[in-house]
């Protein structure tokens, strides 16, 4: 006799215990500390802060530890934490020209004011497994690193092109309206660029990478150049109303990517270069570049270009960037669906019964 399954609560509590055990692994191996994660898994921390939409390396490290290294799960933890935090106000726009640079490269000019600075990059490493790390060997002592250009601002490539009028300028909208806050108001379509960029900044790195990649393979035609990528420290300033002048509340590490794209011009406008923009917390170059490609692709309609590739379709792209939404909805298929399935089962039986001989025979 069938007995309805009971004891869901006990099963859930048992799963917590098993999960805690699985997360910890072999207890004879020392436990990870948050410092270790922050210091030695910094790129994981950066990604979790970026898509988790909170700049807090310590909490991100905690989330990574709790999620046993599953970054999407860690992003979820951080987002759920931030969801009910109060919003105190807006920061002033970051001045990325004033960034204290760890890294700054341009693929469009051989040399330029401020120079090319490789900084800490995997780009030119030869991807050979380093067995000294496996043997817990200490890293070779090198020059003590500090961010470049303490001396002063390094102009951005787009500004250099802008001086000649060769690239579009981006002025604030008339009246400089407050941008919509997508963490408070759902996106509506068509979305303006500020909303799109917010959405992309929180978007899944893998998704943006793939969408950006698709634009390079004929699904949209944007002829991108990596005008400039810079990574370094910028001040975050707020301007409290009662003070009337800005005060710095700290500094954050960010990666900025300015893609430069051709634009054939139109009846009213001469040919010039257009821009795609990417910005990410920490050292997240893949994310910033993917974002810049997708940003430019999403401007197709605005620039009078055909918009028939997936990366150019606002609703398609922006509705599917969020990995929490995607992961949740895909994985909700694990939940019981037997009521719906029962209805479908009955329908399929009914339709098969209605078919002439052929189909029903196979059963």
């Amino acid at each position, binding site marked *: 006799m069938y007995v309805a399954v009971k004891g869901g609560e006990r099963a859930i509590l048992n799963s917590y215990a098993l999960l805690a055990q699985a997360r910890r692994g072999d207890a004879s191996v020392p436990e990870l500390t948050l410092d270790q994660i922050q210091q030695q898994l910094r790129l994981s921390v950066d990604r979790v802060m970026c898509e988790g939409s909170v700049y807090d390396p310590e909490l991100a490290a905690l989330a990574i530890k709790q999620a046993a290294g599953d970054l999407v799960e860690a992003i*979820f933890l951080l987002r759920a934490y931030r969801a009910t935090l109060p919003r105190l106000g807006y920061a002033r726009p970051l001045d990325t020209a004033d960034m204290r640079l760890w890294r700054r490269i341009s693929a469009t000019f051989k040399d330029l004011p401020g120079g090319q600075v490789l900084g800490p990059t995997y780009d030119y490493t030869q991807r050979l497994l380093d067995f000294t790390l496996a043997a817990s060997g200490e890293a070779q002592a090198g020059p003590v690193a500090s961010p470049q250009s303490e001396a002063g601002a390094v102009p951005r490539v787009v500004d250099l092109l802008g001086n000649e009028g060769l690239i579009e300028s981006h002025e604030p909208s008339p009246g400089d309206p407050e941008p919509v806050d997508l963490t408070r108001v759902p996106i509506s379509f068509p979305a303006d660029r500020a909303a799109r960029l917010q959405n992309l900044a929180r978007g899944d790195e893998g998704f943006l990478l793939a969408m950006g990649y698709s634009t390079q393979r004929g699904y949209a035609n944007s002829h991108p150049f990596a005008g400039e990528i810079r990574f370094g420290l910028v001040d975050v300033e707020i301007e409290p109303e009662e003070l009337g002048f800005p005060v710095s509340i700290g500094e954050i590490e960010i990666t900025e990517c300015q893609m430069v794209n051709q634009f054939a011009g139109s009846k009213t406008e001469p040919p010039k270069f257009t821009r795609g923009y990417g910005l990410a917390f920490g050292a997240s170059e893949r994310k910033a570049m993917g974002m810049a490609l997708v940003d430019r692709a999403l401007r197709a309609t605005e620039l009078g270009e055909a918009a028939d590739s997936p990366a150019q379709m606002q*609703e398609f792209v922006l509705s599917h960037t969020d990995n*929490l*939404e995607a992961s949740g909805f895909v994985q*909700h298929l694990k939940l019981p*669906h037997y009521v*719906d399935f*029962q209805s479908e089962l009955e329908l399929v039986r009914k339709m098969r019964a209605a078919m002439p001989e052929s189909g029903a025979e196979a059963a």
Partner: protein
Amino acid sequence: MKVSDLPPPVERDANFNFAYLDERTKRMIRRAILKAVAIPGYQVPFGSREMPLPYGWGTGGIQVTASIIGPDDVLKVIDQGADDTVNAVNIRRFFQRTTAVAVTSVTTEATIIQTRHRIPETPLHDGQVMVYQVPLPEPLQKLEPREAETRVMHGLADYGLMHVKLYEDIARFGHIATTYDYPVMVDGRFLMAPSPIPKFDNPKMHMNPALQLFGAGREKRIYAIPPWTSVESLAFDDHPFEVQRWSEPCALCGATDSFLDEVITDDRGGHMFVCSDTDHCRLNRQDDDR
């Protein structure tokens, strides 16, 4: 006397605000609910938050419940009609941990019933609130994925696309081939997705004395059916709306009027049908014993 068979209460976790959400967020959601009640069937956008449970697992319903629940409420949570499926257990525990309200499995005792995929068999009464978890609030989405387009269709009450779809079903199969999330017209104005309840449950929404609230967390929409509102399942004059019927009664309680789940009992084609509403089934059997 009908007695709930749920485990004893859980202590409230004082680290979180009552019902988890902060009061500003609750106020924002209540405003959206009020607007939804004022325009029956209209999908109100709201600033859905990331909840500590995943999107797609009931975050819309959870946010609605969290915004309306008070210390004196009695909560019932079901999934597929059952109080004891893991997701229902998990959501109930979440509210017990964050509110310590009384919980019940008995439909008539509850003041708030949060549900996924079913409406209880026991009729609801005045003063109760049904909170539906909604995965896809837009009934037209499968026909037109672009929201910019569907919004215009709702604005113009232009639902020809849906009627054509239903007509095509009839032309192809001889009947409408939608069995759950069957589209309804609310108050003669808005086409609405009833969430993936079986069409068996659709008639229960019509002129229901309870307030019915629908929360879609991932899609960031709330909509509502106020008490005593007309809810009509789409149909044609020559193809009237029909609900599922079973040829046998529930194998456990003998009910002939409830939605039955098929349970496979062996690997030789053996199966039986049992009530999907587990508490309805349990109480039926209790009455029989007496």
